[in-house]
């Protein structure tokens, strides 16, 4: 009896170990990044911290902001160790400390929700929602366009040769240069609201979807195609019964890339023309007024949004492939 209990590892213990095995590396990496981030704050912010301290009457070496301008941040920090803690609590730091960004994020999301102002114009949730809606709309347009193009390219030699170079060329044009033009042109013909932004998202997201789907639709081997040929299957039957199901894993992977691209497109689309809503507008406003903390919290909001959207596609991918019997 006792032998058995000793020999068998406790179920609870094993479970905890499995979880900690999965979580520990993630926690370690995050901790390392935060540590490095705090360290980086010191040389980045020491100049302004010293200037502030000097103004407040502290003795710093060397005296005078002009004197220190060209000096290295690390050297200054070593020479003024007592001022170093100040670098983490600057009002307008070059690089805000993690806790400053975290607090700003909380202030503009959770705290506003708690006080019933979750959707006010000062709330990051509101801006995230604005960006999200045009991201998703643009992503849908881009995905439909990308899949449509891929189907054309796979089935028509002419389209393959005529469309692909243009698709590639379209992606070499810097989106930052085109985005304002798209917005201005569309506004001038009366198209306003989220559609112009969504079109920029679509412009960026159709490409990965098209490329991925071309690869996916071409993934069936010669043998699979020959098999259908012996059944005298039509092109449409070959598409629905072979090409389309074979392309599913590619489809989801390229949708993940497309979604991330669509988010970039939406943010870029919010920057020109004095937009006042959306994460892109927050970024731009932050940089106008030197509000680095606001910039960083908007950046993090965008990153979290991307993670959620891509994760969502991943969940759907899992469910669909599992239902198809193709889950690994």
């Amino acid at each position, binding site marked *: 009896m006792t032998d058995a209990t000793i020999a068998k590892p406790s179920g609870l213990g094993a479970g905890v170990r499995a979880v900690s095995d999965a979580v520990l590396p993630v926690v370690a990496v995050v901790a390392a990044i935060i540590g490095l981030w705090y360290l980086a704050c010191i040389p980045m912010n020491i100049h302004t911290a010293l200037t502030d301290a000097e103004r407040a009457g502290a003795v710093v070496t060397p005296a005078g902001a002009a004197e220190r301008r060209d000096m290295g941040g690390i050297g200054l920090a070593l020479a003024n160790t007592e001022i170093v803690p100040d670098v983490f609590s600057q009002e307008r730091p070059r690089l805000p400390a993690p806790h400053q960004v975290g607090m700003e994020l909380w202030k503009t999301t959770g705290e506003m929700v708690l006080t019933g102002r979750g959707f006010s114009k000062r709330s990051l949730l509101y801006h995230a929602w604005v960006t999200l809606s045009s991201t998703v709309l643009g992503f849908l347009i881009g995905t439909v366009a990308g899949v449509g193009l891929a189907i054309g390219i796979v089935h028509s030699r002419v389209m393959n040769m005529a469309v692909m170079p243009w698709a590639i060329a379209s992606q070499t044009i810097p989106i930052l240069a085109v985005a304002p033009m798209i917005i201005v042109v569309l506004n001038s013909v009366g198209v306003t609201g989220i559609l112009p932004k969504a079109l920029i998202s679509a412009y960026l997201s159709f490409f990965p979807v098209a490329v991925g789907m071309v690869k996916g639709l071409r993934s069936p081997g010669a043998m699979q195609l020959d098999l259908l040929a*012996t059944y*005298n299957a039509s092109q449409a039957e070959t598409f629905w*019964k072979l090409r389309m199901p074979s392309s599913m894993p590619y489809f989801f992977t390229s949708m993940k890339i497309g979604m991330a691209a669509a988010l970039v497109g939406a943010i870029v689309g919010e920057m020109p023309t004095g937009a006042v809503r959306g994460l892109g507008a927050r970024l731009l406003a932050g940089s106008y007024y030197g509000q680095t903390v606001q910039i960083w919290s908007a950046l993090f909001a965008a990153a979290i949004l991307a993670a959620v959207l891509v994760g969502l596609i991943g969940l759907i991918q899992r469910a669909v492939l599992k239902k198809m019997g193709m889950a690994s």
Partner: protein
Amino acid sequence: MESDIAANGAAQVVSESSVIVADSLDLTFQTNDGPVQALRDVNLTINRGDFVSFIGPSGCGKTTFLRVVAALEHPTGGTISVNGMSPDEARRARAYGYVFQAAGLYPWRTIAKNIKLPLEIMGYSKESQEEHVARVLKLVDLEGFGEKFPWQLSGGMQQRASIARALAFDADILLMDEPFGALDEIVRDHLNEQLLALWERTGKTIGFVTHSIPEAVYLSTRIVVMSPRPGRITDVIESTLPLERPLDIRDTPEFLAIAHRVREGLRAGHAYDD
């Protein structure tokens, strides 16, 4: 040697019972390294109900010949007819089932759904699809596996499922390209036995490519020996074995004599090569 053919009276003359007739067939592939003559002057008549094996060293055109029959390749010279039609017409008439070397089942379809694939394309009704699936699953000894996905089956079972798929629609010609090549000896023996039983029950005409001399001799009513560069037929051996073939027939002198002749034929092909 030819005079004592008893098996099924196959003869090299074109007649009513001829299913596949190849007449001075040539096929040259144009490749980047110049033309490759895969088939040269191939003359062969396959009769209804024949079990014909193709054997020969790698690159002698066995697969190519089967693909020409199935209209997957087109000859550059000579003529070939299938059921009195061109291969393309025969394909449109759904004259053959083709079994490839790899099972090639769709991973996203269950075994039953895989077998339904040709039936869906050929427009069978739902009920008759079910009927056909049940019938061929039984034929290849896979009853009860219809709802499994391919990855849940062993390689041999997958290959049987792919044979079932080729049998599901009522094509009277079955073309098989090294269907058992990747399987172990025991499974292969078992499948050979099953294939013979199936052939007897269905009366199909079978073209079968193999690298194994015992397999060819055990299964066939006729054995076509080929040699490479250019691919051509060097010998056609009529089997004198009875239709009833238990596995241990492979130890009889008669069997060994035929196997010996096949081996001689293969050797002669190689000698030409050097």
